[in-house]
């Protein structure tokens, strides 16, 4: 009954007006926690991506770093320096700036690896679901095998291969791409499975059969008919996976196989700071850690809300 009430049959408002009037935006407005999470996410993302313009210092510019500033505690402590609000690390870099630049790298890795995993997973899922038979079995068995390895292990493995295959001086330059590839490759299975399941349902729906009768090419059926109708759950997974990918990147960097200290991500910062945790300079590791947790938690909350909002059964 509720489906017949969606909109006024007389007018077709613009995209933005339709969004403001949609059930999704309504459920967003009704959830204070989600609004808070969205605000935190926007602040984090803005701080990270606009770092080169709004950060107080440039931690990557070695000429601006003074070793004499090293180990400065946060500004509210006795030895604090108002130039370094959250203090400095062992190199004398401003921690707030380092966090902003680090979050930028974490987010770039997160987004790119999620997009890579999505592209791979969606394509393979669509093909497996639509083609069926042997192709389906092959793709899904590969997915099953991959699922038995933890994502972190696959990432370590790929990192190891790259380290063995490329000369040492290339490692640091390639680190970003290796991370994206490694993390993306370890998360495609979830997309493939979800998309395959939805595709199996959608391909038997009459609108797909209608397209086949018309003579539409299979590739076009897959991407312009089926894909728009299976993308909903994928976006939910993508949001939650973004948080996971950021964590994975941090873990890899923490283990020393991720970003090098010259281009620190949040994980690298935490690892570097970890060495000073027990010598009294707790802020070097704590603040990047808090930034990481805050960002991941906010993104995760958004993902949970999106899942509930898109699932009509829970509404």
């Amino acid at each position: 009954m509720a489906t017949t009430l969606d909109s006024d049959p007389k007018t077709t408002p613009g995209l933005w007006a339709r969004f403001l009037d949609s059930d999704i935006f309504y459920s967003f407005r009704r959830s204070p926690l989600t609004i808070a999470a969205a605000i935190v996410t926007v602040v984090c993302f803005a701080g990270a991506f606009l770092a080169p313009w709004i950060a107080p210092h440039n931690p990557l510019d070695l000429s601006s770093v003074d070793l004499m500033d090293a180990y400065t505690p946060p500004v509210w402590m006795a030895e604090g320096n108002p130039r370094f609000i959250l203090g400095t690390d062992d190199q004398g870099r401003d921690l707030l700036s380092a966090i902003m630049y680090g979050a930028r790298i974490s987010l770039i890795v997160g987004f790119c690896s999620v997009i890579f995993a999505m592209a791979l997973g969606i394509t393979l899922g669509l093909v497996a679901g639509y083609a069926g038979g042997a192709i389906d079995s092959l793709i899904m068995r590969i997915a099953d095998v991959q699922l038995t390895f933890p994502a972190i292990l696959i990432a370590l493995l790929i990192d190891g291969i790259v380290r063995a295959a490329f000369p040492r001086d290339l490692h640091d330059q390639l680190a970003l791409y290796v991370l994206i590839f490694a993390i993306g490759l370890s998360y495609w299975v979830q997309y493939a499975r979800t998309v395959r399941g939805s595709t199996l349902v959608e391909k038997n729906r009459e609108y797909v059969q209608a397209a086949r009768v018309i003579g539409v090419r299979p590739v076009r059926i897959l991407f312009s008919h089926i894909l728009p109708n299976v993308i909903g759950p994928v976006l939910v997974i993508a949001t939650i996976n973004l948080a996971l990918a950021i964590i994975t990147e941090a873990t890899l960097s923490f283990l020393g196989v991720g970003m090098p200290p010259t281009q620190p991500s949040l994980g690298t910062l935490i690892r570097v700071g970890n060495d000073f945790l027990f010598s009294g300079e707790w802020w070097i590791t704590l603040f990047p850690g808090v930034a990481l947790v805050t960002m991941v938690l906010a993104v995760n909350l958004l993902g949970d809300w999106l899942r509930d909002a898109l699932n009509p059964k829970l509404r």
Partner: protein
Amino acid sequence: MARPPANHPLLEVRDLRVEFPTRRGTLVAVDGVSFHIDPGEVLGVVGESGAGKSLTGAAIIGLLEPPGRIAGGEIRFDGRRIDNLPYEQMRRLRGKEIGAVFQDPLTSLNPLYTIGRQLTETILTHLDVTPAEARERAIRLLQDVGIPGAERRIDHYPHQFSGGMRQRVVIALALCANPRLVIADEPTTALDVSIQAQIITLLKRLCREHGTAVMLVTHDMGVIAETADRVAVMYAGRIAEIGPVRDVIKTPKHPYTIGLMGSIPKIDRREARLAQIDGAMPRLNAIPPGCAFHPRCPKAFDRCRVERPDPIHVDRSHVACWLYDRDDVRVGAVVDE
């Protein structure tokens, strides 16, 4: 058909109003519906999808899905108000006094239990019998609804039955505790024509034998014609016409009923075109003022656009139409197409 005289009807619905609060305002799905069912009588409730016929049935047995709720009027069963009963009392009444048969037999049966277990459990809940007696009664019920090999079939699971057989099991389940009223919501819609005929015949026979009254909700006029004693035609949440089945089908009075009957393809004559009612039933959020049918009605006049008609006594029927609210009305002049 002679019926035992009763002082009051078995079921009496007065001014029933069912609402769905949504964020875009409250939708009124059933609006001021009144009717009664006598003991042993079959009342057909017919209408197109969205007319509110199923919701009326659900409201009576207290199975409205939230956020739907009864917002006005009263429902009396055997003289006693039941629309405001607490859940637990309603549940007991539902199995014992009022049975229910739904469109899809699969959803009424638990796939994890044998049908025997489901039948005996229902019997034990509502009747004071031993488990052995309950099982015996269950077998008799299955035989009664025409399931061959009932002694063996009782231990089968729902998926081992075909659609028609499953619907028979559901009917057996509804009749378990000898209810006095069965609410059957589209009981034959999911079935093939030949099976449909079997189920209709079965329902008719059982109700005659047990003296059970039936509220038969369906969109199929053919089923109504075969089964019902009286029929209520619903449109946009209101009753357009209610009366003896022969009168409503042979000499419909409300323009909607006339249009509905005309649009059913018949096998006795081939017409170049079917009579059709233009347009579609309004959505619940856009029910026109006045008579809800006026935008589609070929005979609408000024009064229909502003004032809402209530059922008026015409011959043996009640018709909610302003055409009949005149002293000099000659029914034939109106019905003649």
